[in-house]
């Protein structure tokens, strides 16, 4: 169980983790599709780059974001003793 004195530090770390997870993802989600038209002239693996980044790219970014978040947040929980005792 988490100590009372640890709660503040734990929440600060959690907040920073939330922001570092969501802000780059949000930025990619907004920016990548906007440049799709321009990037469609270039090709990667035979796929138009704009479509590739907006479709495959963003979906992969979403999964990697989530996977990294789960592991990082678990590490933060354990570091501060806030994890569940299972």
């Amino acid at each position, binding site marked *: *169980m*988490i100590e009372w004195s640890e*709660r503040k530090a*734990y*929440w600060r770390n*959690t*907040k920073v983790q*939330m922001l570092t*997870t*969501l802000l780059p*993802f949000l930025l990619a*989600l*907004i920016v990548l*599709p*906007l440049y*799709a*038209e321009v990037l*469609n002239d270039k*090709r990667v*693996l*035979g*796929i*138009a780059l*704009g*479509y*590739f980044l*907006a*479709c*495959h790219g*963003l*979906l*992969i970014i*979403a*999964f990697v*974001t*989530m*996977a990294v*978040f*789960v592991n990082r*947040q*678990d590490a933060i*929980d354990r570091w501060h*003793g*806030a*994890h*569940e*005792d*299972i």
Partner: protein
Amino acid sequence: MAATSRTRLVNPRLGTYFGIFAAAFVALALMALMLEQLGVSERALRYLMFAGPIVLYGAIGLLSPTREVNDFFACGRRVPAFFNGLVLAVTALGGVGFLALTGVFFAIGFDALCIGLGLCAGLVFMGVLLAPFLRKFGAYTIPSYLGRRFENRTLRFVAAVVLAVPLLLLLAAEVRLAAYAATWLTGQSEGLMAVVTMACVSAMVIGGGMRSQTWSGSAKAIVALVALVVPATIVALMVSSLPLPQMTHGNTLRVLTRLEGLRGLPDLSASVLTFDLPGAGLEPLARRFIQAFGSVGSLAFVLTALMTAAGVAASPVLLSRPGSTPSVHETRKSLGWAVLIVAVVLLTLPAVAIYLRLMLAEQVIGHPADRLPAWFLSLQKSAIARLDGAGPTVTFDNVSFDRDAVLFSLSFAAGFPQAFVYLALAGAFAAGLAALAAGLMGCSALLSEDIVHGLRAEVPPDGLRVGSARVAAVGVAVATAWLAVAAPADPLKLFFWSLSFSAAAAFPVLILSVWWKRTNAWGAIAGLLTGLGVTASTIFLSETGAWTMPSALAGALGLPAGLAAAIITSLLTPAPSRNIVNILQEIRVPGGETLYDRELRLLRLRSRAPS
């Protein structure tokens, strides 16, 4: 703390059970294929693929009955991360994600990504911002979470009334699409199929509530995924020699783009706020697949993606799921699985659309109107495709396609046996059923827990809670079936309205309830009502033609309004009491007992103690 470790609650044989189920379903599909070759009538095959899976889901639903409150509303908190993610993903997509979204990809190409990306991003937002905290709290419904989190029963009632709006809209959208798929399978009228569908769904939910819904939902998810991936993979093998439609459709897209240029499909561009999605029914193919922002302008694209994400993240249908995992860590993991499964589906849907467009561009467009391939003629005969005003040769302008029929038309066009068409239809029907069951469960829990029992201070006995939820489920099922028959609207539009309401009303309040200590009950009530009001009036103005803002994007206006109202009202009213802040501090830490379970346990102890 419970005497047994929580990981031990998870049934270790789940994988075996669902392996057996998947084998049974594949055997059913293979049997349909064999019977077709043996010359069994088409009608018998259709009914086999319609009723066979329903019997399987129904058996799973009816064989997991329960009278325990924790089992009925939270599946006993023993759903492992993968299965929770599976059900979450297919519920988030639903019939709209499978049938309508494929059609939107087919009709407007790239621009349809705004919906898909929004769905996927919504699950990321939910996993980071909301789900772990709601799991730690452990309430069975969102209004009951808000009511207890702010210790205010008025808020609980208001939230229940407000959140019923997106729930009912989603149910109305899904029942239309499930009935649409069922109509294709059985050949009966859509109204009758809506009634049959809701009867099946309520039979699957009533016995064990969340427990039935989770396990039959996992089965439906398996069927939906198999039925989507198998035909697409075979077509990918035919077209690109690699059985990976998700990764190889890009190369096919290059061929398609060249062909579309040759056949004279225009490159249109739209103004930044244009939002022109294909409606239900026959729609022409206006523009090239690859071209961005031809039907949905760039600003509308970003707004749609963000609004869909917020709507999915705060969707009351999906947010009852985190409560059923064994721990907060498992909840986060289940969202990871959900994102992965949704991503695989969202990479397969454009592949289906691209393959069908390619077949159309190669075999129909540019050919003489009197020498069209047999598959196109049969699509025309079943009113899926239409050819109007064709000159000597067919052009893109002459052809229009039924939006919701694209997913299963691919099997027609590829020349597969009819059993593949029925397989695709059974998959789409399964996805619709999964979303309907989740919506029905969410709505009945909301109705019985928060509206009927919500205003009383004491918790009613277990039997009464489960019983009233069952009665509510039947009531909601009847109302949904009636809605589908009485008010047939475009399901995609209803889906967007539902997302608009959950994005505008629920999202700001839920985010603030976890991430801002100063939020109080008045702020939450103001946020809920403002979000609802602004969204409803935007939809009304847009639908009556008084305002050019597309009604599907109403949530993009409602969300900032709801957020501002919640923050300003919270700042203008007294700060929350010490007790409320303590509850928040407990939610923020994963360790320790689930708050709601502890509350119920203490209540039970108190009622047993001699007075």
